[in-house]
């Protein structure tokens, strides 16, 4: 019998023994976070949903082999999602003609968007999507998902120093791309409601 207080590690072990309710609780706990990372990486609702579903399919396939000795379960799950996203990006890049944009950002307006808020969001999302994938991933995990630097480094299987380097390079590129727009955007946005931030 599972209960709400069970840790992820307990749940995944139960799921590995065929406990469907434990698997369901893992889905309820982690779907939104995994989807958010996939969305930031792939830039489209549809692609992010597919990657999220595939992440869980891989979990079910290996749930009975999962060992609690290694990283935290959430780190492992983020890593699966990350690898799927990086594979998808490589595939997209390989299949796309050279002059095409690397990714297409899902710009469908949200119901709460005013025109200018939507415009600002679009510029920032495009700047984010133009970052190299590993810089974008580092920013997504640390800034949007609020993972600690150690957790993010574990997900990406790099050292904390390497993570900091990716973060600093990503932020510098964004600053350079967005700084010319900052005053204009800030001015335009001064009377606009700020969109909810969160990744």
């Amino acid at each position, binding site marked *: 019998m599972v209960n709400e207080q069970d840790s992820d590690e307990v749940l995944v072990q139960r*799921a*590995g*023994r*065929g*406990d*469907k309710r434990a*698997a*369901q609780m893992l*889905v*309820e706990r982690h*779907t*939104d976070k995994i*989807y*958010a990372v996939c*969305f*930031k990486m792939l830039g489209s*609702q549809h692609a992010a*949903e597919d990657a*999220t*579903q595939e992440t*869980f*399919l891989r979990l*079910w*396939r290996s*749930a*009975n082999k999962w060992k609690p000795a290694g990283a935290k379960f959430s780190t492992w799950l983020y890593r699966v999602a990350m690898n799927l996203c990086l594979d998808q990006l490589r595939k997209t890049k390989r299949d796309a003609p050279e002059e095409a944009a690397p990714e297409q950002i*899902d710009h*469908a307006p*949200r119901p709460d968007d005013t025109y200018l808020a939507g415009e*600002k*969001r679009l510029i*920032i*999302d495009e700047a*984010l999507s133009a970052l190299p994938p590993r810089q974008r991933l580092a*920013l997504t995990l*640390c*800034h*949007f998902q609020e993972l*600690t*630097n*150690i957790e993010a480094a574990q997900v990406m299987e790099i050292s904390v120093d390497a*993570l*900091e*380097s990716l*973060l*600093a390079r990503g*932020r*510098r590129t*964004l*600053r350079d791309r*967005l700084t010319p727009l*900052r005053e204009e*955007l800030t001015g335009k*946005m001064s009377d606009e409601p*700020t*969109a*909810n*931030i*969160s*990744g």
Partner: protein
Amino acid sequence: MSQQQTSADKKTEAVRRCFAAYGGDVSVWPVDMREAFGEMALSDAFARERNEASALDALLGASTTRPPRHDLQNRIIAEISLPGAIISPPKFGLLATLLRPFPAGALAGLGALGVATGFLTATTQFASTPESEAYAYFEYGDVMISEEEVSQWAAE
């Protein structure tokens, strides 16, 4: 003196690295960085770095994630297939043994056989109401209906 300067330089460099990597909000820096450099980072000496990093944080804050369609969780839950929960298929003895080498083909063949048998053995049945019987006769066309009969139906 020079050693002190080197140590101060290293600290200054470390604080700059933190602003560059983790942003302008010192309270969200990793705990060890916050403890080592937090006070220094909040001093006026780093006002420029702090403001620049905070401005970028604010811009990033406007980035949103388009939410998934509401049934994403349900779709994932519906797809749960756990290795331990696999139910073994029912056994069909000789038939299963015969069909094992070509399950897809056998299934398709059995399906086709079922449809063919259905066609060959089906008999046409009609509901037994006078109206449906009349339509059936019309359809098969080998019964002539006189005007009298039509008038009689109308009267009924």
